[in-house]
Structures are given as structure tokens and as C-alpha cells.
């Protein structure tokens, strides 16, 4: 089964990292987007704490997370035995081989529930690929470009959400998704988007 089909499977939990929550909040349509897929969402205590750290400087991500929790769209997830062992392996060691607590907890919990980690960090996803073959991780742009989102909120709103995440949260876009993203938001809007690489803003990718 492809990652795309897992993203619309109600039995597969999606574990959102702080990086993804920031992007979803920037779309201003987080609730509608999360309702668009049947999967249950969760966030670890560590990732939620990272969002809270931004509150001191006026960022509203933690507040928005609490609203989503109150609306029943996402729940806080505690790590337990099996997840804790993965978490430990991801935080203890050299810099190159480890992640910060929130990123590690996101992967550990997704592994614990056999779900999908929603995480933008390139290093985290390559660590997962090398250490946990078969483990699924998706990034925000992959999730936002899913057909289910277009079906729920419309193609235009989906493109607007992508653009808001790019401009409002400097959403990271892996190179393999650049071409499709550019088609979806339109080359004119892509050309004005400073967080995209120059190649994606030029006439051809």
C-alpha cells in the first residue's frame, strides 16, 4: 500500500510533530484540513511543549493546538514502554544520529501505534528510513497536497492553504514535491514565494 492510501485509512494514526502543527496553523484551515481525512491525529507531550515555547514571543501555535484538542480533532499522546525505547535510541548518541525530544517522541509514538509520523525534518525522515525500514513518515506538503484535502475544502482552498503555509510558516518542501506543488499553487504565485528555491520559482522546474 502507498503512503497516500495510508493517509485516508481510519485505522492508521497520524502523529503530528511541532513542525507540522506550525504549518497547519499557518494555513488558517487546520480544523477543516484535519477533518478531511478519517485518520485519528495525536501529538506527543514533547512536541506540544515546543509549541508552548513559542507562546512567550507571541506565536499562537500552542493556543491553536489547544483549540484543536478541545474540538476533538487531535489528542495528546503519552509515550509508554515500547515507544520509550525508540525515543531513547533517538535522543542518546551523536548529534548526527539523534533528534531533539519532540522529533524523537513523534517518531517513537508513531512507531508504537504503527501509525505515520507527520514530520518535516529531512534528517528525521532519513534517520527513520535507515533505522526503521518500512516505517512511514510524511511531510506537511505531502499531506496538504493529498486528494482528500481537495475533496473536502476545494482545489482553490487547498492551493491557498499551501501558499499560506509557505509564506506564513516557511514550510519546508522536499525537492521531490516541488514540481507538483508549483503546478498546484500556480507558477505565478510560486514565483513570488520567497521560501521556495529559485528553481521552483523559475519558469521551469
Amino acid at each position, binding site marked *: 500500500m502507498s503512503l497516500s492510501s495510508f493517509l485516508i485509512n481510519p485505522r492508521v494514526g497520524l502523529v503530528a510533530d511541532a513542525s507540522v502543527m506550525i504549518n497547519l496553523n499557518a494555513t488558517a484551515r487546520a480544523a477543516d484540513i484535519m477533518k478531511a481525512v478519517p485518520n485519528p491525529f495525536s501529538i506527543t507531550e514533547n512536541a506540544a511543549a515546543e509549541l508552548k515555547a*513559542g507562546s512567550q514571543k507571541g506565536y499562537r501555535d500552542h493556543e491553536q493546538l489547544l483549540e484543536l484538542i478541545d474540538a476533538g480533532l487531535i489528542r495528546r499522546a503519552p509515550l509508554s514502554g515500547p515507544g*520509550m525505547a525508540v525515543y531513547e535510541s533517538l535522543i542518546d548518541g*551523536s548529534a548526527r544520529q539523534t*533528534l531533539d*525530544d*519532540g522529533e524523537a517522541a513523534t517518531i517513537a509514538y508513531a512507531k508504537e501505534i504503527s501509525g505515520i509520523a507527520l514530520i518535516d525534518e529531512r534528517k528525521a525522515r532519513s534517520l527513520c528510513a535507515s533505522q526503521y525500514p518500512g516505517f512511514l513518515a510524511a511531510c506537511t506538503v505531502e499531506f496538504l497536497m493529498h486528494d482528500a484535502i481537495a475533496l473536502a475544502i476545494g482545489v482553490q482552498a487547498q492551493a491557498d492553504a499551501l501558499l499560506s503555509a509557505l509564506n506564513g510558516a516557511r514550510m519546508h518542501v522536499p525537492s521531490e514535491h516541488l514540481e507538483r506543488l508549483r503546478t498546484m499553487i500556480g507558477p505565478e504565485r510560486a514565483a513570488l514565494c520567497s521560501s521556495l528555491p529559485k528553481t521552483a520559482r523559475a519558469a521551469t522546474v
Partner: protein
Amino acid sequence: MSGERLTDKEVGERLRLARENAKLTQVDAAAQIGVVRTTLVAIEQGKRRVQMDELQKLAIAYRTSANALLRREAVHLDMVPRFRKLQESSDDAVEAATRLLNDLVRAEVELENALGVVRTRNYPPERPILPGDIRAQAEQDAQELRDWLGLGPGPITDIVSILDLQLGVRVYVRPLNGKVSGLFAYDETAGACILLNANHPPERLLQSGVHETAHLISTRRQPEVLTDDERFTSREERYANAFQRSFITPARVVRQQFAEITAGQSHLTRRHIILLAHTSGVSREAMVRRLEELKLAREGTWDWFVANGGITDDQVRQVLGELPDKKVYTARAQGLVPPRLALLAREAWKKDIYSEGQLARLLQLNRHEVRELLEGAEKEESEANELVKLPH
């Protein structure tokens, strides 16, 4: 576990430093994880390995992360508790500045180590304070340093670059509370480190920078903080104060300039002081006080000028004309973190050595800020050309 694991003793030592930085007692920390103080002592001494749930709780209490405590490259410094011991009473402004210096140095050293960057140190010889006339020693040591640096008789226009590029001192110019002028610390791992207040005018920043340099020369192993209520009562502080004046305004140079500017005239005027201060790059008060010290002006001259309307900015403009704003350190002072640290962080992220989350923690930034810092880093990679490849 990824890669080589730290020993229980190393983890315990890091936990102790993190606790002291967070200003918590062993009793406070023990309560956080529900153990008695002796158990916490055993953990800090490496006699008992901290458990993962305990580590998470301690990391939160110490305002850090478990990864920052266990990551092999992480550098843990004890500047905050060392500075705290210097203060007679707790001072939030000094504590904040100390914490900032500690965090900047810690992050920079860790990133240098991770990237294999070696910072060259070229410290001048130490000159311990000797018995006898402290001013005379300061004057001599200041001239010796000027000669060692090859500065000649000209004014010091950029003390930060001298410290950074010529001496290899870690120097940061960041906005601090107005009462803090500068901090100096020396650490075996990090070397000499200086933090200066970006909110102060260039003349004052120069004075603070040279004052801290005096501590590098004379009392290298002692941390030092310079505040606006400094009374310069100790021999070390009197030395640093005299060194600062002698280094910025060497006696011979001031005498020569004074003789040229006042030749054939009967009274010391505001115009003389404005010209002399401008030539040396110091404030009007600093110049008059130096003239008093060198017996080129009578004691009480500055107080007389103050009592008679002072020497105003308008009068300076009348003598020197409109001068551009001297924002010498704008580039160093701006940005979420100092520019060199930002470059190291971008490189560490580009090379997949540090994640966004790890950098946010290391640089004490939130996720939005770290994204701002890293913006465009990937573009640099994808758009790089052989032509702009660095030769090392």
C-alpha cells in the same frame, strides 16, 4: 542508542551543571523526580544511571532537552554559577547577560566541534598584577599590547575586530540591559569570551571592550562583569580601568595631540576637548578625565564644564560638522543570533548533522525563529556552483 554513549559519570556531570545553571538545589531537583537528595547526588556523581522518565522531568525543570543532555557533542559550561558567585546579591540583568554569554559560547563551540572547525587562539602573554604602582603597570602593559598588536599611535576604531580576528577571542555584541557594559569569562574548552552591550554608544563599547581585554591580560582565569555602578575598588578593577585609559588614549599620543591643538593658546576650551575626543574616538568626559590624569588639565576641569552647561552635541556639530552615525557593530549586533553562529547553524543543518528541533534548542530559539534563520540554506546548496566553492 545511536553511536557511542556517554558514561554515567559524564551524564551526571552534565546534569549537575544544568541544575546549577537553572539555579536549582539538589533538594529541588530530587523533588522533581520523586527521589531523596542522596539519590540525586548519586546520579550527579555517576553512581546511578538516570532513568529515561527521570531524565525527561529533569530536562523540563532545567529548561533544556533530554537530547541536549545526552548528545555527545553537547558542550556544558559552568559560566552562570561562576558569575553568580561574583555577585554580592542576585541581579537579574547580570544573570540574564551571563546566561546569554554561556548559551552563545556553548552553541558556538558545539557547532564548531560538530563541523570540525578549529578556532585559532592568539592570546597576548599574561601579565599578572604585581606589587607597586598599579597605574604604571597598566600603562606599560597597555603600550606593550599596542606594540604587540602593531597598532601604532592611531585611534582604536574597532576593538571587536581586534579581539575577534587578531586575538581569536570569542566576542559577541548583543543588546543587553543598560546597566551591563560587558562580561569576560575564560573557559578551558571555549577560551576567552567577551560579551559587550550593543545598546551602548561606540565610545562606551570601546571602553568596555578594552576593559575586558585588561582582564584577559591580567586576571585571565577570573570571570568579570562590568556594570555602570562599578566602583573600581579592587586592585584588579583599578588596573583594568587604568589599562583601558592607557590603551585607548596612550599618554605620549595624548600629550602630543594636546600640544599641537593648544599651541599658542591660553585656555582649555570646549573646542579643544571636542577635537581631542574625536581624534581618539572617546567621549568628551573620558578625554577630559584623561587630561586631568596626565596633569594636562587641572583636577576638577570636567566638573567645571558640567557645572557651566557641559559640552553639548550642538557644540560638537559646530566644531566637527554633521558626522554620520557611528554604528560600527550593526552587523554583529543584529539578527536572532550573532552572524558567525548563524552561519555555523545553517551549515550544520544543511549537512544533516543537526535537525531544526536540535538547533532551536541549542540556539534558544522557537521553531518560527529557527526557520527564519535557516531560510534559504537549501537554496545555497542547490544553486551552488564550482566557481564559488571554497578552497578548503
